[in-house]
């Protein structure tokens, strides 16, 4: 059974991500390694399969409706630019008062700003690792599976 590093190395080989030297090494070792050959073949086959059958979808709206929505948004965005500048200007004034070393401001591009976030520079206060949560009431257990 191959370890993770070996598996990912073979994947990188299939994806053309290895250095030239490393690619040559992997290729040289392949003839003697049936497991590796099978994995390489499987990865290639899967890639070919899904790329050749990329899911398609049609916009569920008429041409006119879809375009009118876009056109209205374009027109609505234009007069909002000055308002966003005012908001940013206010925050720039606020920075020295707060003594915040670094400020990140996110202003929604939507007509009504949805979210304004100030992030202090300094320690990273949170790194969000993606996870999936599973729960069983009857078993009394909650599992956070870290990706």
């Amino acid at each position: 059974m191959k370890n993770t590093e070996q598996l990912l190395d073979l994947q990188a080989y299939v994806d053309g991500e290895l250095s030239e030297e490393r690619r040559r090494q992997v290729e040289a070792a392949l003839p003697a390694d049936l497991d590796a050959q099978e994995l390489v073949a499987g990865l290639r086959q899967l890639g070919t399969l899904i790329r050749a059958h990329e899911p398609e979808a049609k916009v569920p709206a008429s041409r006119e409706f879809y375009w009118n929505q876009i056109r209205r948004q374009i027109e609505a965005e234009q007069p909002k630019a000055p308002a966003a500048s005012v908001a940013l200007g206010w925050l720039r004034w606020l920075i020295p008062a707060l003594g915040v070393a670094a400020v990140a401001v996110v202003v929604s591009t939507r007509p009504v700003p949805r979210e304004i976030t100030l992030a202090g520079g300094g320690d990273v206060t949170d790194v969000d690792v993606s996870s999936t949560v599973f729960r069983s009431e009857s078993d009394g257990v909650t599992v956070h599976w870290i990706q």
Partner: protein
Amino acid sequence: MPVSVKHDYPSEADETLVKWAQQGDTEAFEQLVFRHRDKIYARALMMMRNEDQALEYSQEAWVKAWQRLVQFQGESSFATWVTRIVINLCLDQLRRQKRVRTESIEAMDEESGGVERQLPAPETNPTAGLEQDELRRRIDEALGKLTDAHRTVVVLHEFEGLEYKEIAKRVGISIGTVMSRLFYARRRLAFLLQSLKRERSE
């Protein structure tokens, strides 16, 4: 006497329409939207797995494309450029949502590796027509069963053709994480497709 020239937008190539749109021709831009809207929408749908959000973000992508049109210099195809815009919008939203699915406890067996940790070689039966559509549908279904994180790396690698380094930069993760997520996602897809194929033949 000035002669007004009526453009035949549908017959013009993207490059010409882009040039006209950059000069303020909204009809030219509308033709570009009409021509590529399904592709942009499909990409958003693949990322978000929600029709309303896909519609919203695809439209927002077009708005941004219009706003940034002067920056487009033909370094890629126009459709690719707009696709990248919609992907970034979707990535931003997925990060904001930080979605946590609450699954049944049984589902975690598969998520955690309850399936065999090997990559079964998926079989294909290359018959034309209906089978191909069915395969497309099954692949879409399998993609929908991946987590956002895993589906994102698959979309960016397999359908957008991005290298590991570029994926890492766009998603904000390490190259190592790109590799492990991609491997996990491929393994899961292979398993799902094999399962779906077994269901079909039963």
